[in-house]
C-alpha cells in the first residue's frame, strides 16, 4: 500500500533539548493513526513540521511524495490545538475563506456537519465558547475532502457532549481514501477509532503497531498500555 506520509530520521532541536529525536515513521493511505503521548512528548512538534509551521533540524518529511510546501498544504486539512481563525470573522466568513482557498472544500458537507454540531452561520467567532470553537474548527477541517487530515488534540478541554459530537463527526467522515493523523493524550476516548498507534515519549517512538494486534499481544486495551508506558 502507498504511504501518504514518510518521515525519515526527523530531528528537531530547541537549543540543546531534542523535541524529536531521529524519528522514522510511515503512514499508509486510508489509515487512522493515533499519535499518543503526554504533553511535551513531541506530538505537536511532529505535526507542526508536517503542516509547515516548524522546520526540522535534520531529516526529511514527505506528504504524498512531496516535501512540505504549498502543494502539501493544499492536500492536508489541519486542526491546530488552538483557535486559528481570524478574530473578526463570523462563521460565514470562515466558511468563505475555506471555500476560497481549498479546492477540495465541500459546501454541502460543511452545511451538514455545521447542522450536526448545532452551530449558526451568522455567529461571530469571538463569542464562541471553547467547545464551540473546537466544533467549528473541526467542521471546517472535516468539510474538506483532503488526502490527509491532521487533528491535534481534537477533544482536549471540551465538555462530554461536545466531545461525543466531535468523535461522531470524525467517525462519520471516515473514508478509506483519506488518512487521518490524530494526536491525543485522552486515549480512552479515542482508542477505538484508531487503527494504528504510535507512542511518543520524549521525542522518541517507544512503541508502534496495529491497535488490535497490540491489544491481542499485551492482553490489554491501548489505554492500559499507555498508562504502563508512560508511568515509568
Amino acid at each position, binding site marked *: 500500500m502507498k504511504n501518504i506520509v514518510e518521515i525519515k530520521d526527523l530531528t528537531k532541536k530547541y537549543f540543546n533539548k531534542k523535541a524529536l529525536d531521529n524519528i522514522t515513521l510511515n503512514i499508509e493511505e486510508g489509515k487512522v493513526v493515533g499519535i499518543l503521548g503526554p504533553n511535551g512528548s513531541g506530538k505537536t512538534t511532529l505535526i507542526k513540521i508536517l*503542516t509547515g*509551521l516548524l522546520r526540522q533540524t535534520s531529516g526529511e518529511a514527505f506528504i504524498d511524495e512531496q516535501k512540505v510546501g*504549498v502543494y502539501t498544504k*493544499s492536500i492536508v486539512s489541519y486542526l491546530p490545538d488552538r483557535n*486559528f481563525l*481570524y*478574530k473578526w470573522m463570523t462563521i460565514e*466568513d470562515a466558511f468563505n475563506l475555506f471555500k476560497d*482557498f481549498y479546492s477540495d472544500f465541500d459546501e454541502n458537507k460543511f452545511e451538514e456537519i455545521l447542522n450536526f454540531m448545532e452551530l449558526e452561520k451568522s455567529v461571530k467567532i469571538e463569542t464562541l465558547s471553547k467547545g464551540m470553537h473546537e466544533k467549528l474548527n473541526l467542521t471546517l477541517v472535516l468539510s474538506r475532502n483532503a488526502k490527509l487530515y491532521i487533528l491535534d488534540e481534537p477533544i482536549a478541554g471540551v465538555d462530554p457532549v461536545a466531545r461525543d459530537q466531535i468523535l461522531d463527526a470524525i467517525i462519520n467522515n471516515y473514508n478509506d481514501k483519506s488518512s487521518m493523523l490524530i494526536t491525543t493524550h485522552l486515549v480512552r476516548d479515542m482508542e477505538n477509532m484508531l487503527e494504528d498507534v504510535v507512542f511518543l515519549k520524549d521525542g522518541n517512538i517507544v512503541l508502534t503497531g496495529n491497535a488490535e494486534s497490540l491489544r491481542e499481544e499485551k492482553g490489554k486495551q491501548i489505554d492500559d498500555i499507555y498508562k504502563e508506558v508512560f508511568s515509568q
Partner: protein
Amino acid sequence: MIKYMKYEIKGTYKYILGILALVLILITGIYTYISRANRGSHIGTIFIGLSVLVLFGTALATFLYIVGSFRKELYDDRGYLTFTLPLTGNQIVGSKLIVALLWFAILGTAIAMYNIVMALILNPVEVNLSELLSMVSHIISMKEIVVIILGLIFNGVNMLVLIYFSMALSRVTFRNKRIGGLWFVIFLILSGVIAYGQYNVGELLPYYVDLNTFNIESMNTLRHQLNMGINTGIMMSTNIAASIYSIAITVILFIGTGYLIEKKIDL
C-alpha cells in the same frame, strides 16, 4: 493572492473607517473653531492644540495598526491559519503590502480632499476652479505630479518592505524567541546601512537622469543648470545608480521576507 487581500481588507476595514470618521470629525472641529474664534480665545487654542495632538496620535496608531497586521501573523494564533494556507511567502507578503498601501492611499486622499472641501466652505473666497488649476499647473506640471506620486508609492513600498523584513527577521533570530521591539532596532540599523550604501553608490556613480527631459547628466551639469536657474520649480532629477540600488534592495528585502516566513519561521 487577490483572495488573500480580500480577507485582509475585510479584517481591517472597520478600524480604518472608524479612524477616518474620527479624523474627519476632528478636522471639522478645527475648521469650525478657526472660522469662528478669530480673536483667538484660550479654549479655542487649547482645542486646536489637542486636536492636532490627537490627529498625530491617530496617524501613528493607524500606521502601527496597519503595519502590525503583519506582526500579528508572526506572533498570534492566526498565523496557524495564514501559514497553512496553500500560499507562498511572497504571496502573503505581497497581499499585506498592497492592502497596507491601499489604506494609506485611501486615508491620505480622503483627508486631503476633505481639507480642501472644508477650506472652501469655511473661507468662501471666490475661487475660479479653472484658474486655480492653471495656477497649480504653472507651478507644477502633470508630469511632475505623476513622478511625485510614483516616488511616494515607491518610498512607501520601500519602507513597508523594510519594516516587514525587520519583523520577520526579528522573529527568526535568537531561535524564534519573542523579543519586544527588536524589530524596530533591526529596522533602524538596516535603514542606516541601506541609506549609507545608497549614498556611497550615488557618490561612486554620479550620473543623474532629468525626469523632465530624461537626459542623463552628471552632477556638474546639474549644478550648472541650477546656478543658471534653468531648472525652475521642483528639482526633478534622480541619481541613476542610487535608484537602481534602492529598487534592488526593495526587491531583495521583499523576496527575503517571503523566504523567511515560508521557510524559516517556527510558530
